[in-house]
């Protein structure tokens, strides 16, 4: 009476044809929803798919994508996700299943940090990745606030790149990350200084031919 349902995957059309005689079954039409093709399907799954920072008002402050997606897809994903997360209450758990991804998010003051990881990944450690990133920002900017990230967004990206590369943790030591950032900053300053000097020199040279051309009337 309670035999398990036998699974017959070899069933062919002809077989069922014979079974179905006599009763009209046009109403047995199967409903087919168009299959939602996952944009995340790639040959090998990435650990972290993307990271988003957004404000409580839903404004995106930083986004980092580790999977190639078109702008349209990115916009749609971030819009949907921001809405979903903002609708959640503070006491709720920090993980949620969203499409075929796992979302790990945490709110720091007015900013939400949100990571999308693969289904198999460890949620708690991702949560601590977020925290470590916040610590790094905090250390670099000195008690970081939303405005720091708005106006120095490129720094926020550098720090993220030093900490996470291609969605994987590259360097988890706070000291080492900050050291790398300092070096890069130094290099940039040097370059800028050099550039300004050179620019002053070149300014006159650059202007001379232009004025000649203008005189001829070619511009």
């Amino acid at each position, binding site marked *: 009476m309670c035999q398990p349902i036998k699974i017959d995957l070899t069933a062919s059309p*002809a077989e069922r*044809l*014979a*079974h179905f005689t006599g009763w*009209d079954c046009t109403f047995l039409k199967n*409903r087919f929803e168009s299959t939602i093709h996952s944009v995340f399907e790639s040959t090998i799954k990435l650990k972290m798919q993307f990271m988003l920072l957004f404000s409580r008002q839903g404004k995106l402050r930083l986004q980092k994508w580790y999977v190639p997606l078109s702008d349209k897809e990115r916009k749609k994903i971030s819009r949907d996700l921001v809405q979903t997360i903002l609708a959640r209450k503070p006491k*709720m758990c920090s993980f949620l299943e969203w499409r075929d991804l796992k979302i790990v998010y945490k709110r720091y003051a007015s900013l939400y940090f949100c990571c999308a990881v693969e289904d198999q990944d*460890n949620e708690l*450690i991702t949560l601590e990745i977020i925290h470590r990133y916040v610590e790094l920002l905090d250390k670099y900017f000195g008690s970081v606030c939303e405005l720091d990230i708005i106006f120095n967004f490129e720094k926020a990206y550098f720090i993220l790149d030093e900490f996470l590369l291609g969605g994987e943790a590259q360097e988890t030591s706070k000291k080492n990350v900050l050291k790398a950032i300092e070096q890069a900053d130094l290099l940039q300053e040097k370059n800028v200084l050099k550039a300004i000097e050179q620019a002053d020199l070149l300014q006159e040279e650059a202007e001379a031919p232009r004025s000649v051309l203008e005189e001829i009337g070619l511009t």
Partner: protein
Amino acid sequence: MELEVHIAQRQPRNLKDLEKVCMEEWAKIPAAVCANLVKTYRKRMISGYLFISVLVNSNSELIRLINNAIKNDLSSRNPTFMCLSLHCIANVGSREMAEAFAGEIPRILVAGDTMDSVKQSAALCLLRLYKASPDLVLMGEWTSRVVHLLNDQHMGVVTAAISLITCLSSKNPDEFKTCVSLAVSRLSRIVSSASTDLQDYTYYFVPAPWLSCKLLRLLQCYPPPEDGAVKGRLVECLETILNKAQEPPKSKKVQHSNAKNAILFEAISLIIHYDSEPNLLVRACNQLGQFLQHRETNLRYLALESMCTLASSEFSHEAVKTHIETVINALKTERDVSVRQRAADLLYAMCDRSNAKQIVAEMLSYLETADYSIREEMVLKVAILAEKYAVDYSWYVDTILNLIRIAGDYVSEEVWYRVIQIVINRDDVQGYAAKTVFEALQAPACHENMVKVGGYILGEFGNLIAGDPRSSPLVQFNLLHSKFHLCSVPTRALLLSAYIKFINLFPETKATIQEVLRSDSQIRNSDVELQQRAVEYLKLSSIASTDVLATVLEEMPPFPERESSILAKLKKKKGPGAVSVELEDGKERGELNGGGDRGGDAAIAASNASTPSPSADLLGLRSSAPVSGAAPSAGSLLVDVFSEAGPAASSAGVNDDGFLSALHAPEASDSPLVEGPGDSDSAPPSAASEDPAPPLPESDELLNKFVCKNNGVLFENQLLQIGIKSEYRQNLGRMYLFYGNKTSVQFVSFSTTLNVQTKTVEPLVEGGAQVQQVINIECLTDFIDAPLLNIKFRYGGALQNISLKLPVTINKFFQPTEMAAADFFQRWKQLSQPQQEAQKIFKASHGMDTEVLKAKLLGLGTALLENVDPNPENYVCAGVIQTKAQQVGCLLRLEPNAQAQMYRLTLRSSKDTVSQRVCDLLAEQF
């Protein structure tokens, strides 16, 4: 140099542009501007890199333009430049990038003089390229050296390299086997280290949590280590991790416990992955059990999630089950819907036969208040559990009907199709289903899905409850029809089909139903489907004889057992990986529908080859053509259909005269049973090159299946399926054999032989196609052995030879006889000679449900006599077996004993061989 200066000079303005753009909306700059920027901006400047990584999509054409600049940076000796360029490659990660740098990066990675920070970047950069275009990253000498990075002094290098190694070894496990022992020793060193040993790599008193997790993850690519020492060390590590979870926290900070538990969960994943250490599995389960009541929502969530996988392990399934009350409680009280969903998942995973009733009941009651977003999934799960663990099917039917009542909107078609399939396939539940559905429909407001199920089931099995005056045919019909006007078009169409079935089941409702069909709202309905059905059914009911009606509107044959469509649906919901299953299922279903129409036509239109019908007529209407000679005067729709069938009918000789005349086949007078060819132009049987095979051992069993029914699948293997449809009247019968080719290859030299003669079938059976054979049968005198059917064909060169017993048994020629109690007893006494009686006492091999027994006795062909036997538990039947030689009266008495699960069957007939044979046949049926 000049270029660099140029860039620097323009930098401020462009950065400002960049900032502005970035702050407004990232990628809004037109491609042309973008291209311009990149061209003029051939970086080296850090912001240039940033610009590229933020704004340039990995598909962009522009990448090629900047590859050269990156190459220069890579070959510089400055670690900052090298790192930046590696970051840039990783961030873009396009195929062009991979083409340009896939050869260079491995060299940097394993070179002895590379700086640590560059190694880290190079490892992850290579990983990124490998993921994007695995074919471009060639394995080589460097791979063996990469493994040894696990031993590196610098923790950061290990952390970065292990991601690469994990990915590579999941693709080529053998090549990286050596990493297992390295990983175990590394893990062991971390786990046993004091919390301050690792300096900056200690995170809130937890030593290197990221690295530990990654190590544990790497180990999950491999089976448990074979080397005893390595394995012992690993088990020790896992035990230490489990022990640490019990220690008091070193810090009150949530980061401390998160990092610690992250390692714990990863360790549990590894334990589940190995699935070989019962001790660890049970410990893990107990640990998770503690988390189930933790005040941190996150931990509760994760514990529920991990337990789901633990439930599937045989070692820990029982341990998981002990937490059932906690989980049910979580389902009821958790405030977060995602946690409740996890609880529902876990209940689903831990369900087995012992707790199915409790779990299904809990899920049903949760469903009433469940979040809308998860209702559909819950419904599917309840439906699957109910089906999978149904101990008795009346419980199953109750559950599904409850499901429809509680969450009708979320009951997808798959679910209610499935309940109908099951009811049709299990005759022990049909009566109960009809009763329950009838009661459910009496609710003032019921869901449309309930109406659908009700319509279908009452249409099929309404007769089983018609005996009760409270659910007499007319009451049933009125109940269904009271819902009619509130339903959508597909449901109405279904109901119309149910009505026509009612006409067949209960002739007394015919006038009422015809009235309904004839009403303007049906016959002039603006929906073409409804209108067509109304017209066709009305015509069918008024012109077809009861016999034809009975054949056309016969009970549905059982559905083929196959994977539950709802399971497929659940798989689909779970992810794209399972989509193909669903699609395939749908394809089958589509063909099923086509098959229904075709089968209906083929059932009566007696042509030797099955002709696919182009007209999508419902219920095989054209089959009534031969019977109703005056058909062409009907509506234009019918004329069309009939003219198509007309010639076929006359040539096949299916009208009453033709039927009889075709039957007088001359040969085989020694056989009591004559099978004549269905056509007058009988051809000799094809020359059989080999002797027919002896009958299959199961052929008797197959035969028994058909004693009480006329239609179904006689035989089936991987290649061939033989379906049967048959009808009998008096001493005549006609049988349609459908030979279906299940393969995609044609069968050649297909031939069938009976031990009497038949017309040949088409020698070719195309892949997936079906051919039909008609056999006309006349019963000359009573018989015991069924005729043998031998089938031969070539499939891919190999000769297939199958012998079966044709399911023709003596009881097929029963004519039911109604008689009163007095008559019955008088005749019973007349047949009192010992050889006229056959008796058997036997144990019940199926359920002893009244309705089922009745159905079987009716299927036997006899009349079931009510109020004859003084004991209402007993059944008495009467019938006359019609043979050409004589008529054999037959009386039957079946006495069930429910307590002992035994039956006593007594047969009396005027001929001893008949009594014995019918008794033998029938005894196998209960």
